[in-house]
């Protein structure tokens, strides 16, 4: 398990805020991702959770190379993806593919399913020779549980769950080691969600894939992830195995987030620790000094404003937690 397939170091993405039309002067920056260090191991699923605006989708885009980071490195197979150019970059990208959130907008309505799933082969012709492509696409359709005879149909002829399967088949086409899933089930109904989650798990076992699984639904992430990173305002605030994060969270934000998720069991009503946070997430263009969560944190003291807590294991937190006062508190289970 210690076989690392992807590693980010100090990954930063700032989007400039400019003023003026002719002479654009930079007046600030939205700090979407601000120093993220993550490791993804072979065959594991790393869940990334956080609320809107925490930078999880920007992180996904950085990992697959859709955005260029402001600073930092993304190491895959000993190569820094950020520094690669031209042919080498193209080759390296084969290895890391993406499944997008909305299966309604991420498939071109004018292309047949066969063309959509086969398009990666146009860019990477060395993967499958031209003659074998139709066969390869049909195999992919079969792999994700769709009828291979439907190769000439258009996306609108499929339901939401089936479309997401098409998106997954497209990501599998180049036989990548790593798949970044950005909210892959959040647009689907619950009964369909389960089908897609089971499919992703089956594919992982079959092909030894590593997943970065980004989602705002903490229950789904618990189900599928081996390790979980919790993000807040562009930073990872807590990182650990699923049991550490869900049963023994130590960062106040993780605790608040978990306590806010309703559990489908009415018997737990009133028997769970409910932490209701005040206010909204601060603007990532102007984040608070020191700890970014301190403006909404009930534990905040002077030191939190002055000293930025780093993501390390602490006295009362056996796994890495970016809080000066990290301490285990079980908020998920009833008492």
């Amino acid at each position, binding site marked *: 398990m210690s076989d690392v397939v992807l590693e980010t170091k100090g990954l930063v993405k700032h989007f400039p805020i400019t003023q003026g039309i002719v002479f654009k002067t930079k007046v600030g920056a939205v700090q979407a991702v601000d120093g993220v260090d993550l490791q993804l191991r072979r065959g594991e699923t790393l869940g990334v959770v956080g*609320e809107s605006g925490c930078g999880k989708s920007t992180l996904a885009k950085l990992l697959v190379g859709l955005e260029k980071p402001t600073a930092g490195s993304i190491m895959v197979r000993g190569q820094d993806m950020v520094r690669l150019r031209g042919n080498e970059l193209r080759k390296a990208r084969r290895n890391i593919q993406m499944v997008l959130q909305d299966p309604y907008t991420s498939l071109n309505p004018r292309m047949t399913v066969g063309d959509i799933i086969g398009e990666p082969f146009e860019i990477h012709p060395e993967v499958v020779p031209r003659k074998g492509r139709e066969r390869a696409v049909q195999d992919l359709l079969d792999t994700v549980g769709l009828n291979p005879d439907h190769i000439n149909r258009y996306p609108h002829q499929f339901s939401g769950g089936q479309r997401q399967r098409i998106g997954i088949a497209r990501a599998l086409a180049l036989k990548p080691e790593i798949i970044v899933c950005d909210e892959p089930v959040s647009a689907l109904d619950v009964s369909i969600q389960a089908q897609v989650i089971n499919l992703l798990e089956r594919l992982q076992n079959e092909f030894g894939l590593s997943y970065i699984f980004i989602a705002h639904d903490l*229950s789904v992430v618990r189900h599928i992830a081996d390790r979980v990173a919790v993000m807040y305002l562009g930073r990872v605030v807590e990182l650990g195995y699923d049991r550490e994060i869900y049963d023994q969270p130590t960062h106040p934000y993780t605790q608040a987030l978990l306590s806010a998720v309703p559990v489908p069991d*009415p018997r737990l009503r009133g028997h769970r620790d409910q932490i209701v946070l005040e206010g909204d997430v601060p603007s990532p263009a102007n984040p608070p000094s020191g700890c970014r969560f301190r403006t909404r944190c009930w534990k905040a003291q002077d030191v939190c404003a002055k000293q930025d807590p780093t993501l390390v294991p602490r006295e009362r937190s056996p796994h890495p937690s970016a809080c000066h006062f990290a301490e285990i508190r079980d908020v998920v289970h009833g008492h």
Partner: protein
Amino acid sequence: MDVLPGVDPRAPLLEVNDLHVEFRTQYGVAKAVNGANFWLTPGETLAILGESGCGKSVTAQAIMGILDSPPGFITKGQVKYRGVDLLGLSEQQRRKVRANRIAMIFQDALSALNPVYTVGFQLGELFRIHRGMSRADARKRSVDLLEQVKIPAAKTRVNDYPHQFSGGMRQRVMIAMALALDPEVLIADEPTTALDVTVQAQIMGLLAELQRQRNMGLILITHDMGVVADVADRISVMYAGKVVEEAPVYDIYARPAHPYTKALLESIPRLDQKGQELNVIRGLPPALTDIPKGCAFNPRCRYAKDPCRQDPAPPAYAVAPHRTARCHFFREVLGE
């Protein structure tokens, strides 16, 4: 408040009987609601649970009288408020019921609010039109309301436009607007679906508090079984336009009586435990233009036998007091 003729204060607060709604489109008739039944008492929270296309939002629109018609038509049934059938009222009378007696909040607050008027103007409009207040008085009441829904600095924020509010704050404005005229029934259609979980917790907490203060009946329309478990008293589960199971919240989670409810509960991942492979409901919900004969769930059901595939559809069997299920084999599902 204007008096509605025939209102009987002793009659049930809200009753929906055998409601049928269909949409006549060029592709055929889509039967969105096919005999929905439920009732609501003051202070109670009824959750209407279902997946997309099960008819839960259309039911709400029919109750409110805001169904787009055409293409939508109510073909049968009653919506009774305190004994008065709302479907028989003139549009003028219905306007007096809307917001005054029955109010509604929507999923997407940004598209439900008018972007070119300030929040204060839109709130004040209710008081000026329904209560005939002056602009100054209406404004004062608007500030009061914003304070009640805990919007900080309500006095200045009343002059802001909807886009200047965050998602959670906007949903608070919607709640303020719905509660402005002290309705007895509030229908909340997926009020927190577009929000983050921590904000969802704030909004659900606020709704529960306001409901308690006003002893209001709340119909919560949602697909989230977690939210339902947290706040509902009773649940109506809808599938293909019918209420397939109706029960108090504790019973339904402990022992579902309809195979659809059971399968739905088994298919959700849970926060407090790491599960094995999720149980899957095979297949897809039916197209509303082509609902299967007999029980609409039969092609996906693991209990289905011959009678399920024949008309008539299963009636609402009484499973226990205050508990019904539209399944011929509910005893088997319950595990009796």
